[in-house]
């Protein structure tokens, strides 16, 4: 009955939300940026926007001066006079003058027409697009529930809630909160002793101290790297047809180190975009530039290298725009952007920053430019070999008839070559000595060059700092300039998304006029300014967010709240979020005790069903399932072949890493159930979890089953849950006693040895319980 009501409520809720927005708008001043531009952008800009080629009737609606202009004796918009405004007349016309024309498939509805009418009546005030002006730190808003806020974030969130007559949820209970923050900051569940310590700690700052412990954990950098690897389209293979393998893990390890060391985000930006151009750049700073060599490489027979050079540079341009600007500049590759004021010329001006790399269009594996990463020992070996080779050479020169030094030299050279080949390399950025001229490419096609262009930043954004050189370093300096309107906003928005599942701007890749407006604009700006003023301190920003009262709320949702705010835009509760593909596996490994906590190094090949690569790829090097420790490394280190995404990861929405991805996806499908039930990863984890509790709580299932539950979920089972598990365990025990062969088959799962001291029948019964727990919705969700 409860659920019946519930489902009815949600349907109604959806409609209520929409009308609720309109009502709010109807009662207040119409705001051009909030209410009007989105309508014009979506319905009008394709023909009356920034794209000059597509523009109809020489009419532009995206700039103030054009909106109030007079065309052929008609005012486009006459402030205060809707009837004298051609814009209003045309969108409300009932004849064939009506705009937008039917064939465009776009239409302006009655509510939108009413909004535009009221906007004109109220004086047709224009405002620039919100994200193109620098963020301002506003005063903390006035609130009623003054005891609730813990930091500035909460004032903004609460003020918005109170505006709609909503109250925040109570704080989550301690075990939920600990599991949430531990998963969010480290990607792993809390250990039982950590749960105990936190539950026992009644100090006022107990939670803050947990947060500080987590921020200092090396697991933090690994967890935070994951989203950056998606954005950076990091992978272990080239990605096109041949999909040859590469070693970019030194770059990946640089990211983990930088995050763990809390490198300020401005430095993080400088080193990755232009580390090679920094004065006296270090080896690490050059490794960092691998960010922009992570894109795909094509080595298919018969390609035209110039065509793919253009693709690589376009990828860098568009990835940079997505990650730092939150703009869809890719639209301007073939024509002026249809919605945002970015011309095609400006696209190629941005492109020009990245078009000067000493690289080849047909590229395989670690293609030049690269750096070698010899260890100290390897360096010494090389020097020693070189010395010996030189020595042989002198002996040979002194006595050309002597065969001994010749043979010796050949052997040494062979050794040297082998050593050389064993030294890892990583791809980096390096400028051409002779600059390459960039041209605008007509229709974006590689062999249709138009005008020559020089590097420059889009005019609509802040100007480049005066001391910035005209190269990648200058571009990076522009991005981190305090006057830049986008970088800080876009970055803190992604951080918000990390902890709330959705950004304050729900289109983290589009801060342009077609993107969503922030749910809390003043909060976004406040955070952006705070971030810059803290010298781009990433850990401080993460700490600020997770110590807010907003973050610490509980997640259960009342039907009333669900009705009022089904998408949780206003944050009157904590979101309940399914874990990422990587966190789901890592959690199972951690809870079972299998996880190998070792940072970095070459990517590894954990379990994968046989033949997956061979089904589709032509590679001769097949997937070699690892042995021993490498089976149990964090999923961050799993070998990522782009044309064949690790299947159990893909099922849980992992990015293919073919292109830059900054949005999180969370689907809910039957294939996910099959993975958790049957993938050997989880069956083995269930066995080890079972063995672990039999080892740690030898007394009886009454202790063991709750212990198991707690290892995964960080809480004690409720009495009905415990009873259910115990009843099931009894049945399984009887069942396996009757068919011990089945028990033996089950406990043989996985490559890790089964400890014979545990009776197979008991262990099998425990395993099924462990598997049950690993399959729970709560297990793969952070509440």
């Amino acid at each position: 009955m409860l659920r019946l009501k519930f489902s009815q409520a949600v349907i109604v809720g959806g409609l209520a939300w929409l009308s609720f927005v309109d009502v709010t708008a109807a009662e207040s001043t119409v705001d051009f940026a909030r209410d009007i531009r989105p309508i014009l952008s979506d319905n009008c800009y394709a023909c009356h926007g920034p794209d000059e080629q597509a523009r109809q009737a020489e009419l532009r609606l995206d700039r103030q001066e054009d909106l109030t202009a007079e065309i052929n004796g008609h005012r486009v918009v006459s402030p205060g006079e809707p009837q004298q405004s051609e814009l209003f007349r045309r969108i409300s016309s009932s004849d064939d003058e009506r705009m937008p024309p039917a064939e465009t498939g776009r239409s302006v509805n009655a509510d939108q027409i009413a909004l535009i009418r009221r906007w004109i009546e109220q004086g047709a005030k224009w405002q620039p697009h919100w994200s193109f002006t620098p963020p301002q730190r506003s005063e903390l808003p006035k609130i009623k529930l003054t005891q609730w806020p813990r930091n500035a974030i909460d004032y903004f969130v609460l003020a918005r809630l109170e505006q709609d007559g909503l109250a925040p949820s109570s704080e989550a209970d301690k075990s939920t909160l600990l599991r949430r923050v531990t998963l969010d900051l480290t990607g792993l569940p809390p250990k039982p002793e950590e749960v105990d310590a936190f539950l026992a700690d009644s100090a006022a700052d107990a939670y803050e101290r947990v947060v500080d412990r987590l921020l200092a954990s090396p697991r933090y950098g690994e967890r935070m790297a994951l989203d950056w690897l998606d954005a950076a389209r990091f992978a272990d293979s080239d990605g096109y047809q041949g999909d040859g393998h590469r070693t970019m893990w030194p770059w990946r390890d640089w990211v983990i180190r930088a995050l763990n060391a809390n490198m300020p985000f401005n430095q993080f930006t400088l080193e990755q975009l232009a580390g090679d151009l920094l004065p006296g750049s270090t080896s690490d700073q050059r490794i960092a530039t691998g960010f922009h060599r992570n894109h795909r490489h094509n080595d298919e027979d018969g390609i035209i290298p110039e065509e793919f050079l253009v693709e690589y540079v376009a990828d860098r341009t568009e990835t940079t725009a997505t990650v730092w600007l939150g703009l869809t500049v890719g639209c301007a590759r073939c024509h002026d952007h249809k919605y945002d004021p970015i011309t095609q010329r400006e696209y190629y001006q941005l492109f020009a920053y990245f078009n000067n790399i000493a690289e080849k269009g047909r590229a395989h594996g670690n293609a030049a430019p690269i750096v070698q990463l010899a260890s100290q020992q390897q360096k010494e070996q090389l020097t020693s070999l070189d010395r010996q080779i030189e020595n042989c050479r002198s002996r040979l020169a002194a006595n050309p008839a002597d065969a001994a030094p010749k043979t010796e030299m050949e052997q040494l050279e062979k050794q040297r070559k082998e050593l050389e080949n064993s030294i890892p390399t990583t791809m980096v950025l390096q400028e051409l000595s002779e600059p390459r001229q960039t041209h605008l490419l007509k229709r974006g096609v590689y062999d249709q060059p138009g005008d020559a262009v020089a590097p420059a930043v889009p005019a609509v954004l802040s100007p480049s700092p005066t001391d910035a050189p005209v190269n990648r370093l200058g571009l990076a300096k522009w991005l981190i300039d305090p006057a830049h309107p986008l970088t800080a906003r876009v970055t803190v928005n992604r951080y918000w998304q990390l902890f709330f599942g959705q950004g304050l701007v729900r289109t983290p890749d589009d801060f342009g006029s077609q993107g969503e407006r922030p749910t809390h604009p003043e909060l976004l700006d406040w955070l952006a300014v705070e971030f810059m003023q803290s010298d781009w301190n990433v850990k401080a920003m993460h700490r600020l967010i997770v110590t807010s009262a907003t973050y610490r709320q509980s997640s259960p949702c009342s039907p009333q709240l669900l009705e009022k705010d089904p998408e949780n835009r206003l944050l009157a509760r904590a979101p309940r979020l399914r874990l990422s593909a990587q966190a789901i596996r890592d959690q199972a490994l951690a809870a079972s005790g299998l996880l190998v906590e070792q940072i970095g190094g070459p990517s590894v090949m954990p379990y994968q069903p046989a033949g997956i690569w061979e089904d589709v790829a032509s590679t001769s090097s097949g997937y070699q399932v690892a042995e021993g420790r490498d089976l149990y490394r964090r999923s961050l280190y799993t070998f990522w072949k782009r044309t064949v995404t690790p299947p159990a990861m893909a099922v849980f929405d992992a990015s293919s890493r073919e292109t830059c991805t900054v949005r999180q996806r969370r689907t809910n499908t039957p294939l996910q159930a099959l993975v958790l039930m049957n993938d050997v990863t989880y069956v083995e984890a269930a066995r080890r979890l079972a063995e672990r509790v039999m080892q740690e709580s030898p007394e009886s299932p009454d202790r063991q089953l709750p212990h198991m539950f707690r290892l995964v979920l960080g809480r004690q089972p409720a009495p009905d849950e415990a009873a259910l598990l115990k009843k099931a365990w009894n049945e399984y025990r009887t069942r396996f006693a009757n068919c011990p062969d089945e028990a033996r088959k089950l406990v043989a799962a996985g490559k890790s040895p089964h400890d014979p001291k545990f009776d197979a029948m008991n262990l099998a019964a425990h395993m099924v319980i462990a598997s049950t727990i690993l399959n729970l919705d709560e297990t793969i969700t952070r509440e």
Partner: protein
Amino acid sequence: MDPQLELSQCITRRQLLGRAATGIGTAALATLLNPKTANAASEPGLGFSHVAPKAKRVIYLFQSGGPSQMELFDYKPRLKEWHGQELPGSVRMNQRLTGMTAGQTKFPVAAQRVKFAQHGQCGAWVSELLPHTAKVVDDLCFIKSLQTEAINHDPAITFFVTGAEQAGRPSLGAWLSYGLGSENHDLPGFVVMISLGTGRPNDQPLYDRLWGSGFLPTQHQGVKFRGNGDPVLYLTNPGGVDDSLRRRMLDDVVQLNQLRLQTQADPEIATRIAQYELAYRMQTSVPELTNVSNEPDHIFEMYGPNSRVRGTYAANCLLARRLAERGVRFIQLFHRGWDQHYDLPKQLQGQCNDTDQASAALIQDLKQRGMLDDTLVVWTGEFGRTVYCQGELKPDNFGRDHHPRCFTVWLAGAGVKPGMTLGATDDYSYNITERPVHVHDLNATLLYLLGIDHTKLTYFFQGRRFRLTDVHGKVVEEILT
């Protein structure tokens, strides 16, 4: 209230709101709101159906690598006269070549060494390499004037199935899953099967993106039915877990999830419960589907001896029919190995041996079951091949390079005129002389046959309404019944 229906309403809450907020069409919504109506979604007026659909499902036989139109369908008798002569500049017109032959100093015409004959009532020309296809030509509709934009495999095949050369867009099957939903509740709506070519084993790599969901939600990605191991990955219970134990465990998972649903009130939990039930049903329905032992001998004989060998193209064709019978919306086969740069005569014989009989049998089999009326079958590669020889033209051997300017595809079944040929190429099969059909046109036509206006099946992403056909595509009216 019917618990299943109740559950399905819970399931759809987020989708409903997501769609309301981002302006996604109502059709997919109708499907999600009540899976029961998904069956009716192919009726006019519901969902993404904009026009009366002719096809309820598609079986797409993708021949990966670029089959030579000249050795299969596009008969050019005058090539014999010109064999070994330089391809005239007036024909080549300095068109773009791949890097594999751009450096050749000579472009000698390679004549067709296979015999052609006209077949059926329609008199379609088919080469001797395809004796079985030749017998069903009266059911086929040939387009000899298909053209594409890309000249290398990866961009070309990606373009063919996603409408863009760059990675990141949804595949055709994903668009259909998103637009039309699934007809069968126990099976995925989009199934992919891959087979290796014996003509050129271990070649023509494929990529997950060809059946990927791009920016659409991941549940729309194609599910691979594999030729070895589990037919669907992770389908089989681990050793020691039989069906009754699995059911018992699942009952506990469901109960514990329901307890959580009561305290958390999150509809995602209800969805999770439903998905576990679906997974459990798949554990039965998929083996039932892939177990072909109950097919009579004459069916295996029809599809050819390889149809008894799991993972072959022939076996996949038979499975395709079984999937179609169960209402799977989009079934896509990829047969690898059609890239004949060298050793063309031998390689092509192998590829045709792999595919000819089974492709033809699929048509006949669907027809005898009355399913050809509402099943669309498509046979195509990503591009064609050049009339000139790649490498040295020898008396007994030669090869052909990639050719995007013209190639032949065939369609059959629902809504397509049988026994018809559309379009023509010049005497060299190099340029189109009549009725060019672009890949976007073909995709627009496929959607049309399924009842979808290709300009209206859109998804809002990064500020744009994306569609399979970008801003192009015209339905090929001439081939419609």
